[in-house]
């Protein structure tokens, strides 16, 4: 069996993640050839991730501390949402459970029951390791012993995405991946099958391949420009179409969480790295001009700006199919969902994982291609509903932007989920999909979707034993967190970056 010639179009985070994974995990099955142009540049604006990325790095044999030092990374225990349900509100969406985890009745059901009985119970945050550690600015690696409370949180990273690509490039090239510098000026296709046969560079060189991975970003050179795969537009639910990004010096502690602050016409991110803090304002151009957005961002950031604001344009949605003919779209070339829940790198990873498992041996099989597209659609659709929830579950009425979000029609799949939660705190459970129960519970309650009832099984224990158990749990969580190191100190000891910016 001959090795497949895989041509990756575009460097950047998606391109180099794909190159490294294919070269490292399918040696002998494929020859990886990546084409990129330094003149084009990449979108990467400082990236917050989800815990799944750890599995990706692990499979590539990446040493965590080395990777974190190289990308100037910090730890991330969750996301703090500010001003979403109402101005002045704040909640954390944690990576981890509420309560000790396990058990057939979700912890929040007991909490709801006591609240509905009029008891004075502490905020749900205090029963989450991740939330408590985040609020206290502490960090330690989770325990592997599932009986222990300090095994009930996960973590991800916040890192400089412009450094992650080059880091992976080192791995990919060591495993034999080839890189060619140059701008693609033409794409050649087979007249009969429509498959892409080669890409042609400015200097006339043609790079031939059996399988093409489109990592060209918003340009979507193969899927859109060459194969004209239609785009499903989701902007009626997710109306933001611009972001303006600007890093600044960090003022105050380096937090082990990402900040997501609702603004009059969108929201603002705050991603603390070791050497700086990334900021950006994601907004809708229908409601806000680029200049006003930049001014609002400059006015809002905490420290001295390090660069001028840079504007990005996008549209929420995805290509109808991500794998068409012999072209597989990975990352922005296949779809875009705003980084509200840090899903960009996760969606890249999901596509790469599916490609690895469905990698063609002889001819590309339609069965494999359909399965790839089914898996990717599922990921996008589930993330989409979760994102829409953040906009729709609000009482904000301070601008026409929020009026639209609050009153817009939402997909039936989400309307049913919200109604179920409103009735008795039930979360629709799925085995697949990136966000699990605790994520949904955090956002619902954090944004004032308050259930009228609760799971009747939660009525079994006596209120006294329940209150005493909860008090002890919150105290244990607080005690464990307090013994942990300060996040900044942990970073300086574990993975200090080589040179300051």
């Amino acid at each position, binding site marked *: 069996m001959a090795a497949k010639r895989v041509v990756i179009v575009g460097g950047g985070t998606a391109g180099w993640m794909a190159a490294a994974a294919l070269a490292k995990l399918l040696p002998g099955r494929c020859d990886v050839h990546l084409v990129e142009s330094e003149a084009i540049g990449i979108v990467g604006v400082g990236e917050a991730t989800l815990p799944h990325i750890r599995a990706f790095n692990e*499979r590539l044999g990446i040493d965590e501390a080395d990777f974190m030092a190289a990308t100037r990374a910090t730890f991330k225990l969750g996301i703090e949402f500010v001003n979403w349900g109402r101005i002045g509100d704040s909640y954390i969406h944690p990576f981890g459970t509420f309560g000790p985890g396990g058990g057939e009745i979700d912890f929040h059901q007991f909490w709801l029951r006591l609240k509905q009985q009029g008891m004075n119970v502490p905020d749900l945050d205090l029963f989450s390791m991740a939330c408590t550690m985040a609020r206290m600015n502490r960090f330690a690696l989770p325990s592997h012993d599932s009986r222990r409370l300090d095994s009930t949180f996960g973590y991800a990273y916040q890192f400089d995405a412009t450094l992650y690509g080059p880091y992976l490039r080192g791995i990919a090239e060591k495993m034999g991946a080839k890189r060619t510098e140059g701008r693609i000026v033409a794409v050649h296709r087979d007249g009969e099958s429509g498959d892409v046969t080669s890409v042609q560079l400015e200097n006339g060189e043609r790079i031939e391949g059996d399988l093409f991975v489109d990592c060209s970003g918003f340009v979507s050179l193969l899927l859109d420009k060459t194969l004209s795969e239609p785009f499903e537009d989701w902007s009626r639910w997710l109306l933001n179409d611009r972001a303006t990004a600007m890093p600044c010096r960090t003022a105050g502690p380096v937090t082990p969480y990402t900040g997501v602050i609702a603004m009059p016409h969108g929201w603002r991110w705050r991603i603390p790295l070791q050497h700086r803090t990334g900021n950006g304002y994601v907004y809708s151009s229908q409601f806000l001009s680029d200049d006003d957005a930049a001014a609002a961002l400059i006015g809002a950031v905490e420290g001295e700006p390090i660069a001028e604001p840079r504007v990005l344009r996008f549209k929420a949605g995805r290509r109808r199919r991500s794998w068409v003919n012999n072209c597989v779209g990975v990352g922005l070339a296949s779809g875009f969902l705003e980084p509200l829940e840090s899903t960009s790198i996760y969606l890249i990873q999901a596509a790469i994982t599916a490609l690895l498992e469905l*990698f063609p041996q002889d001819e590309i099989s339609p069965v494999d291609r359909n399965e790839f597209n089914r898996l990717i659609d599922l990921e996008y659709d589930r993330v989409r509903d979760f994102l829409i929830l953040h906009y729709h579950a609000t009482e904000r009425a301070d601008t026409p932007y929020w009026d639209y979000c609050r009153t817009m029609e939402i997909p039936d799949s989400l309307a049913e989920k919200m109604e179920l939660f409103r*009735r008795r705190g039930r979360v629709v459970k799925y085995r697949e999909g990136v966000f699990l129960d605790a994520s949904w519970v955090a956002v619902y309650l954090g944004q004032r979707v308050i259930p009228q009832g609760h*799971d009747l099984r939660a009525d*079994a224990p006596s209120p006294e034993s329940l209150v005493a158990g909860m008090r002890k749990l919150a105290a244990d969580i607080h005690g464990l967190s307090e013994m942990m190191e300060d996040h900044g100190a942990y970073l300086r000891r574990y993975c200090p970056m080589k040179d300051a910016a």
Partner: protein
Amino acid sequence: MRDVVVVGGGLLGWSAAAALRRKIPALRVTVAALPPPVDALVERIGSTLPSIIEFHRDLGMSDGDALLRANCSFRLGTEFGGWAGDRPSYVHAYDRYGQGIGTASFHVHWIRQARLGATQPFDAYSPAAQMARAGRFLLPDDDLESPFAHFGYGLALDPVLYPQMMRAYALHLGAIERPGGFSGVNLRGEDGFIESLALDDGSTLSADLFVDCTGPRALLRSALDTAYEDWSAWLPCDRLLFADAAPAADPSPLDICIAHGAGWRWVAPSRSRTSHGFAYASGEISDDKAARTLRGHAGVDPQAPITIRQGRRPEPWLRNCVALGDAATMVEPLEWTNLHLAHSAIDRLVAMMPDRDCAPVELWDYNRQCAAESDRVRDFLVLHYATADRAEPLWRRMRDTAPPLSLKHTLDLFRERGRLPFYEEETFSRDSWLAVLLGQSVIPTHIDPLIDIVPSVQSERTMAAMRERIARQIPALPTQAQFLGNIQRQAAR
């Protein structure tokens, strides 16, 4: 929600009543204890899946209660003979089949070796399957490093003592019994909810929620609508025969299902009986001939045949009436899912108990989950027919019938490269699917490329070590009778 009436006095009705009382003590639960009809398979099939153990534990019952008070015994799996042409039988146990080597799953290694022509049967790598074949039994080892630590086991129920135990337990938990039958269902004018049952003694019984455990005819639920999704195109058996023979002195923990030109027959050993049965398509064999066939194997006369219609209600829960067991889904006993589906529905009912208004959105979620679960059980059963290799007309027809879409998806992916897609509410694990697929010689065209890192000789070496580690320990394990004897002696002390 305050008052619940459970209609049906068999093991299902009493199990539902016990679960409701135990989990939601605020409910008043009355059981209208109609004797179950003969065609209620949940009541008649004694072989159960490992989920029954969890169900008992949730109710606060131990394995010991079931074994000692209700004369149950253990079962580890099922041996399938004659399904895959003249290939040897295979065992579906509720266990791991091998362990992954390198980054690839075990079955990928097995398939690679099988294609090279050199490997032992897939079930040689399942400790429980090997234990079952040898007639031995042991509870799972606490030491997770042991090969005998990861299997599940079901129970073989005593058809008389088990319902009695469940009834006693439900009454102990505070359920109220109303003996006798009922003559009619009174609907409320404004919304079509069930208002009350007219009982034989002239009184009425009203409630907020009615739980229909009356078997396939669904005496209550059918009063609301009779929509039914028929699966007979895929599952052709429409008759069942039962013949109970005397129990063996040392009942095997392994049930046997043998394919037949007109269907399949089973032998299910337990402490109380050796249950023989025959599931067949009435178009392929006469009832008389079927009865003679079964008598030949069982050595006793079968009872009158039962007619079944396989399929499910699209909405088991409508308004204030929820159908459980055969009233909701009816499938042949192949793979012993009847009581499993009923238990699962009881758990779901308890977990999702709504207010009196039985809001459509809450019922929608309940029905969605039930449908997903039943459909995947259906797929797993159809899998046995769709991939079987036999020459009789029935089997040729089954091979040529297009499977349900979700099974087609599974089969397409597996045949292409040995992948199994995840479905929500799946009953059977990946290893279970693999046991049947590979047992019936469905071999993928391609295999997972991630296996390249491990050379084939290394796979074979590791696989041989796994087999030997299992085989070495089997002779030292107790037989079922020895094991049960030990438990009884310990309890007597």
